[in-house]
């Protein structure tokens, strides 16, 4: 299988990538572009650790082959805000959410997707929307609180 070359806009910058066509976007981000905030957790779209925004929508980057994302816009945790001060990031710090922290980029990117479509989610909305993402440290209580805090602008 010969390599493909695609062009993506990643965190606002155009990048040209050459890789095996079925390479998941996840591995391109992590190993070729050194955007290692996006994590590998399961490789099958079950845990959400690799969540990024693809054309503005949160999705698991392990599920998108590089050949299928030519021309698309990708935002990773590194590009969520210029200085790490997105309201969710501030809320995450205020609630001291992370423990091991490994899943938290994905959690924050998913939460950012939620707030984009629903600026004042109920607790039920949060639970439903966030359930694709696993946190093995079980920081769910604080994730939910942090999303509520960010939604209320208490950051």
């Amino acid at each position, binding site marked *: 299988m010969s390599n493909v070359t695609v062009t993506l806009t990643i965190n606002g910058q155009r990048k040209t990538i050459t890789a095996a066509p079925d390479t998941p976007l996840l591995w391109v981000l992590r190993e070729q572009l050194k955007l290692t905030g996006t994590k590998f957790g399961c490789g099958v779209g079950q845990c959400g650790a690799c969540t990024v925004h693809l054309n503005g929508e949160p999705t698991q980057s392990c599920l998108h082959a590089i050949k299928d994302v030519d021309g698309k816009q990708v935002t990773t945790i590194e590009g969520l805000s210029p200085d790490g001060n997105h309201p969710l990031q501030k809320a995450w710090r205020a609630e001291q959410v992370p423990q091991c922290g490994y899943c938290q980029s994905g959690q924050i990117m998913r939460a950012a997707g939620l707030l984009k479509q629903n600026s004042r989610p109920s607790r039920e909305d949060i639970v439903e929307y966030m359930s694709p993402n*696993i946190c093995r440290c079980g920081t769910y209580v604080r994730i939910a609180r942090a999303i509520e805090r960010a939604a209320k602008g208490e950051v």
Partner: protein
Amino acid sequence: MSAQNPMIKNPSRRRFMTGAAGLTFGVAVASPGLQELVVGAAEAATGSSKINNWVTVFTDGTVVIQSPAAEMGQGSLTSLPLIVAEEMDADWSKVRIVAAPPNNQIYGNPAFRYLQYTAGSATVTGYFTNLRQFGAQVRYVLLDNAAQRWGVPLTEVVSGPGYAEHTKSGRRLSYGEIAAFAKVPAQAPEVQLDALDKAHFRLIGKDVPRVDVAGKTNGSAQYSIDVQVPGMVYGAILREPVDRAQPVQIDDREARAVAGVLQIVPLQYGVGVIAESPWAAFKAKQALKVTWSSEARGWKHSSGSGFEAFTKIARDDSKKGVAWETVGQAVPELGKAQNVIEGEYRADYAYHAQMEPLNSVASVSKDGCEIWCGTQSQTIAVDAVAAALGLSADKIKFNGMLLGGGFGRRGNRDLEFMVDSALLSKAVGKPVKVLWTREDDVKNGRFRPQYVNRIRAAVDDKGKIVAWHHRVVSDEALAYMDPVRFKASQGRDNIAMRGTELPTYDIPHRLAEGLQQPTGIRTAPLRAIGVGQNSFANEVFIDEVAAKLGVDPVEFRIRQLAGTPRAQRGRDVLREVARMAAWGRKREGRGLGVAYLDYSGTQLAGIAEVSLNKDGRIRVHDFWCVIDAGVAIQPDNIVAQTESSIVYGIGLALTEHIDVSGGLVQQSNFFDYHVPRMRDIPNIHIKLVQTPNHPTGAGQMATPLVPSAIANAFHQLTGVRLRQQPLLPGRVQQAMSEAGVKFA
């Protein structure tokens, strides 16, 4: 130095902080490696730099404190240095924390006989007294130098955050200013520490933000999986499906044909693939065709037949185990007792599921090996890699990284996932990042053993348990995960047996014996180790006894607790959790269940409120927990760890199980190994009780409460006992059917 100084307990008495480690701190300029971490450090460099073991005070006031433990989410990267900073009266805003290098003698945990090993929720409790003493010694030296500079008695010098002050004259010197002229004694005196009930802490108990949190919200936190070094290639391992099976035939034609594959490396325990990208390595690994040797013991083991075999052993009292706890004469007392109650409990294999699949990066060169890894033991890591490469430990350069979860999976003596990268790097002559896929992580998992527990107890005519015999049959755990510790423990399997000891229940005759079996299945400590199952057995059994006697389960436990101060703390947490949960209030369609635990001195009680779905699924609506871990260094973090422990316990209680068939692990990823998601967790109510006792563990203590409290709640709801965790819907249906109870 003044003999009258009230800080000094006994100036003539000298000692080393950690065995023969010698001077354990210094007030000096930076070693070059630290300078990059510290703004303004360059001006302090005078050429007389030396490595200091714990604390370095810079002339600009910056204080660098070494943190000896691995950070896997539990927060000790912050809480250990905080203890030092507290006693030295450091200005926390000027403290910088660096990871201590591998060195058992200096940085080992006293709780593990000075092994630098982060596990067992033993970090704060193990290091606490030494770190306090050590911080106090730094303060002493700083103040003593200030006193000498001013020509005043040391007794007139006090400290504030980051400074010494002579109150009579109002003179003040910052710690940084003192560092510029300070002389450090070759040995520090032991300083008398304030008793915990008298101490006025400025940092301890005040919830400083964790130092690792910011980097964990912006993607900058570095785990070993994130490491990249120049010239690095990628490795994957097709590992033996069961322990000690070896590749007999390797057909690697298809694997070699995968674009980007560089090398196939036959190993004793499997086949390594080296490739230009992770994806190529994974594809090539998939394409390998390997037949395995068939002699390994594990091929013969299956979960189902394992339970049958274990049950036979548990019931056969002629088979003696290794005594874990012996008090009085349990067996003879049971023999002559009138009222003997029995219970039998099981647990399936369980998997850690740390979010970061195992991985490591190694670079082997002619000079040795540099390794980047997240491990629960820095020194075991160095030794494991050295042994695998046939090098001496001084040839291994270790770079400790954050752990994307540990839960017991990253502290085994052989650290096979680190050895992987060392062997592949040696083979290819380049740095290699070895990545385990999630499927590798599950299939090659090292699990909590499967268990059969059998308890018999004698109850006297006053309703008091007077004799207790607990037999635990499980796979071997410690012998497999750490043969060195197993040998030192003389055959007592700490990992399998912990939690069978009953330090607070007032039962005069007790015997807990371990009958660990060599099944060939790979095992490991898993969060809460043996306590996770043994406490499940204890607390469901106690509930059964209470029910048989017609005594309220909370009241029954309170009555069984001893008169010791430690047991009184147990009573307190039980009473408090009952109050919080409004224990006496009946709820329509819901059941309440309680569990109590003394876990390494930490007192806990939990109550679950559950309902039952028609399909046999148990739903946990609320979970209340009261925890008393003594002095709370970081109270909010203890609450966070307790939330975490409860969520972990929900998974173990309700859904998580590994099934083994002919040695092969049947599960493979999160679609068939179900860990809790946000929608699965109850409302969690935690109360942290802070008492002036030596701090005890907090990182996993609540986990064992959850399965037992849920099973007990299920009994209150239905009258039916569940005796095997996880409490799967099929098991619920079967238990209901056997008891002739219909779903409401």
